[in-house]
């Protein structure tokens, strides 16, 4: 019990900060949605980014379209709640390797969708996930090299709008199955490579916290996976600090080079302080 109370206190500050940020974002996103703010264009998305980048990266130089990183998403998002995004690293252009990748969706209430830390020698040259996109927006991937350089690529996505809202589809099911995990292991595509693919799926509503309780008018607390780490026998492969822009049932598929035959371990922590852990034996790849 004491441990629980301590944890709650520990969480209090970051949660308050998150709410403050969300309230602020809601104020600017929805509060100003008058006639002139029908849908974002590339130019307005870019303006948001210009204001935002200092908050995220300070005054560090960001190199654009150097080929180190590439990001792909559908030009028109089919479902605003589930927009697939693929991030590719070109190892030839980043010989020292990549330390982290930050995924940004300019117009979302919380634009920093996720920051991924890449394990050294983990072989993560491709990472795909699914995000919520609230409006017409650039999706940006900023990769940080081991040497500390920032490289950015971007792609413009037209959110589908209409009936497809970036919300949880089956709320009861989402709560009932929360914390379940699934790991898929895809053997190497080419015979001479050691690189295989992993896909990690976590059941979680990843709620936005942008809904108001109709009686109290308070925002219903956000509830999402905040931290995730994936490792092989305690050797980091990929970790994430994420937010509400990651789709419900967070889903990550990525390249991976195994080191030895140790187990794949996963730990996820959500904003309620719930910890979900799982592990799987590494499947034989036939090498």
């Amino acid at each position, binding site marked *: 019990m004491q441990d629980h109370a301590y944890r709650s206190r520990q969480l209090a500050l970051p949660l308050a900060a998150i709410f403050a940020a969300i309230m602020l974002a809601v104020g600017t996103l929805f509060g100003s949605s008058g006639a002139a703010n*029908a849908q974002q264009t590339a130019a307005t998305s870019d303006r948001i980014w210009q204001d935002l980048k200092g908050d995220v990266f300070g005054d560090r130089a960001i190199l654009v379209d150097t080929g180190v990183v590439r990001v792909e998403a559908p030009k028109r998002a089919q479902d605003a709640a589930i927009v697939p995004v*693929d991030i590719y690293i070109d190892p030839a252009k980043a010989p020292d390797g990549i330390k982290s990748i930050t995924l940004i969706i300019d117009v979302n209430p919380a634009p920093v969708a996720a920051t991924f830390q890449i394990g050294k020698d983990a072989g993560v040259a491709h990472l795909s996930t699914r995000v919520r996109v609230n409006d017409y927006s650039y999706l940006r991937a900023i990769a940080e090299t081991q040497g500390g350089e920032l490289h950015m690529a971007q792609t413009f996505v037209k959110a589908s*709008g*209409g*009936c497809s809202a970036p919300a949880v589809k089956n*709320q009861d099911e989402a709560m009932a199955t929360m914390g379940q995990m699934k790991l898929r292991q895809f053997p190497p595509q080419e015979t001479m490579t050691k690189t295989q693919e992993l896909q990690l799926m976590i059941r979680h509503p990843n709620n936005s916290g942008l809904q108001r309780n109709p009686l109290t008018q308070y925002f219903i607390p956000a509830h999402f996976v905040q931290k995730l780490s994936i490792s092989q026998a305690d050797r980091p492969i990929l970790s994430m600090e994420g937010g509400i822009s990651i789709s419900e049932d967070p889903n990550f598929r990525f390249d991976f080079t195994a080191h030895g035959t140790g187990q794949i371990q996963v730990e996820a922590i959500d904003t309620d302080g719930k910890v979900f852990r799982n592990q799987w034996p590494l499947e034989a790849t036939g090498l």
Partner: protein
Amino acid sequence: MPIDGTRRKLVNGFACTAVSAAMLPCCLGRAALAAAGSLEFKLRNVADRVFAFQGVDELMSAANQGAISNLGVVVGTDAVAVIDSGGSLIEANALIAAIGKISAKPVRYLINTHMHPDHIFGNAAFQEIGATIVGHHNLPRALEARGAFYLQSFREQIGEALMEGIEIIPPTMLVDDRLQLDLGGRVLELQAWKAAHTDNDLTVFDSATRTLFAGDLVFMGSLPTLDGSLLGWLRQMDALAAIGAARVVPGHGPVPADWPEALTAERRYFEVLARDIRKAIADGTPLSEAVKTAGRSERGNWHLFDDYNERNATVAFAELEWE
């Protein structure tokens, strides 16, 4: 820019008649303006004192005034119940005007079959005439999560003028499982379903004439859209088909239609979609690739296929991956 009352009426009038606002008499109320408008609003008599409006097989737009879904009216000896409020206040007011020609009884209930804008954007008009809004117990939660987004995203799609005055108004009478509404001399049976088209689907059955208002649990002609659970929809298909209806008013499609034959096409589409997606998942095909081909063999059978099939495939993929 703030819009005053007079201006608001003119904006509505402009949208509905497409003539110069200055030509409109300012003294007309909203309902009168809507009734005088260009929206051809025909209530069909589908059974004894049961009426339905058939929406067009299109996406909501300024031109169709949001009138794309089917709406229903059931008249009792004491009161009238309306099934869905339509996609704009103009449509809702046209419906209210049309009901006035059929019956002098008050509209006591507005029943929302689910959360989508083409079924609920007219709610404010019914609140204004004192109707109690009835919905699935999950509907308030779903509207909380989506209301602001709907108001924002539809502004672009249907235009500022048609959006004017539209509010997200949740139901105050909720259906947990089943609920009966007595209109005097006839009882409507409301049934809340588990997640299928959405997680807040409600059907309305008029036992006197055995007419089923299926909401968007039944699509005909226009491609069904998936915003809840494909497996849930398929699992409940038999229970839906078992309803002893003589006819159905689907959410989209011909009014009325034969029952349960009305379910045949959508069931086939869902089975094809599920088959294609399951194969893609088994093959390790990523979502972004799989959605481009899944369900394509159904393309010739549906209106709006290109608008919605990839989206359905996306939703289905994310769900079926957990099987």
